């Protein structure tokens, strides 16, 4: 059953790029080539500076020069202040291969897999320049990408916690199966806010017309 894959076929589909850059095709693209690509093929969705929140969360923002030094995005720590209104892609991503691979396989969203390798290099370089990881005159290539990796703002921000990867691992959160007179805070800590009552439409119309219950009529305020 099945047949051997031809070299051309493997080449056509084996497009993944790993963190060690295995799979990365040779090529190069400058920030300025990248800017051209970005403006014509990406900016309509992501904004000229990768800041748009219109079709997806922003790609760029929230990283600092300090982060580039430490390899840890400081704004991610609980309680820290961030310059970005929400977590951006650049704040999270630790591996440059991830960006290259993903843009190459899935972007532009409505026309994926249509960029040439040099264009992917270029547009990646452009995003990196927006985040000030590389200078505006930079050319990203298979030759220097490993060095740029060493400047990724959150490169040291990932941990691998094996017990949540292995089926036979152990949970990190522990509860006990108390059955009687268990310790409970009697206070209700959170209720559905009033404005959210009908934010999902009229719940009456999302429940069956028979059965043990009826959907609440959320066009009306909660009954007393």
């Amino acid at each position: 059953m099945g047949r051997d894959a031809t070299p051309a076929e493997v080449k056509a589909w084996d497009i993944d790029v790993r963190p060690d850059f295995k799979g990365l095709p040779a090529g190069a693209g400058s920030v300025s080539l990248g800017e051209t690509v970005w403006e014509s093929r990406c900016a309509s969705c992501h904004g000229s500076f990768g800041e748009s929140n219109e079709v997806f969360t922003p790609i760029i923002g929230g990283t600092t020069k300090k982060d580039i030094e430490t390899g840890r995005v400081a704004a991610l720590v609980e309680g820290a202040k961030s310059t970005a209104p929400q977590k951006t892609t650049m704040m999270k991503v630790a591996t440059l291969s991830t960006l290259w691979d993903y843009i190459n396989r899935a972007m532009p969203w409505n026309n994926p897999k249509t960029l040439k390798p040099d264009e992917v290099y270029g547009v990646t370089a452009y995003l990196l320049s927006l985040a000030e990881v590389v200078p505006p005159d930079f050319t990203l290539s298979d030759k220097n990408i490993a060095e740029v990796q060493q400047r990724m703002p959150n490169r040291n921000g990932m941990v691998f916690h094996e017990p949540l990867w292995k089926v036979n691992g152990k949970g990190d959160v522990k509860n006990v199966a108390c059955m009687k007179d268990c310790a409970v805070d009697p206070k209700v800590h959170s209720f559905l806010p009033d404005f959210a009552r009908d934010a999902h439409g009229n719940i009456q119309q999302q429940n069956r017309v028979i059965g043990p219950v009826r959907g609440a009529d959320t066009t009306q305020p909660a009954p007393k």
Partner: protein
Amino acid sequence: SVGAASRAMAAGAEGEDAILKLPEHSTGLGQPVAMDPGYGQPSKWETNLRRRQSPGLTRVDQASVSFTPLQGLFGIITPSGLHFERHHQGWWDIDPSKHRLMVNGLVKRQRVFTMDDLMRLPSVSRIHFIECGANTATEWGNVAVPTVQYTHGMVSCSEFTGVLLSTLLEMCGIDKKKAKYVLAEGADGSSMTRTIDIERAMDDCIVAWGMNGEMLRPENGYPLRLVVPGIQGVSWVKYLRRIEVGDQKWATKDEAVHYIDHMPDGTHRQYTGIQECKSVITTPSAGQTLLDKGYYNVTGLAWSGRGTIKRVDVSVDGGRNWRTARIEGPVLPKALTRFNIDWVWDGKPAILQARAIDSTGYVQPKINQLRAVRGTRSVYHQNAIQSWLVGENGEVSNVQVY
């Protein structure tokens, strides 16, 4: 208790019209068999139960979610028409005769399979749940959504049929010394890629074409999808076109930017694929109003990515006291499990909770216990005990109690 039938009786002492006046269907001739197109549909009275988006959750409809209406479902099998959806670049209805699966990387023979090839191979049929890693994400923070469809509706359970991934890898001569991981890749625009542990790959992963007796639905990956029992749905790559055997993890976009767990110290945990033990009461649940005081069958679902459900306890007083629920068979590994328990509602406010225990002994945690370890900025893997408040008026609402 004053049942609905008694209420309807009020009108005539002789009896109800629904009985005394024979309906049209008792005195007429019905519809023929095999009505076009020879594929049946739910009753017209059931249109309220639909998959629905959660407004404001996503910005575009092709990188979005539709939720399963758990509030109205029974048993453990999810009707395929109501299976939740999660697409990253929209869904397709692919011509299956042109679909191919390639196996490459650390194998003796890099191979290409047609659907014909695959469907000739020895197959297995198994019932498993699939849960999106982001299911119940809204409940990490304060209460935000009104019903169990939106809190828990990214879980479904189906009978999957296909060839074990291990069978394929053996056929291709997997390099057992070097192989540590496999990459699964889809054929759609997103070409979703996810790293699978080699132990999973050689154990119970299924390269599946069948779902609930028929072919996969297009929204669920027709004609081919990887089934990765116990692991978050994003690994169940749809429109599966390629399996690569490798020796390092791939850190793909959906394992380096999403599906990572934001810890209090600012790090993110990567590759936390397991969907840990969880349960939820589906009826009565938020957004529903009890008809009356009196007896109810409280029912819900429990599941664990690590094995089988061993026990489900239910509390009606916000977690102070618990009773063990009746579990409906079959109890299957990494499958939804239905539980039921008696409850007589006395008309006073009550807080309903369910708490599942799996075959490893793990007890489903409270939200404060989860937060104590993982902080408050996580999106994924929210498997806390869910609380539903039954108000005096019988309306149930979503609350947090612990």
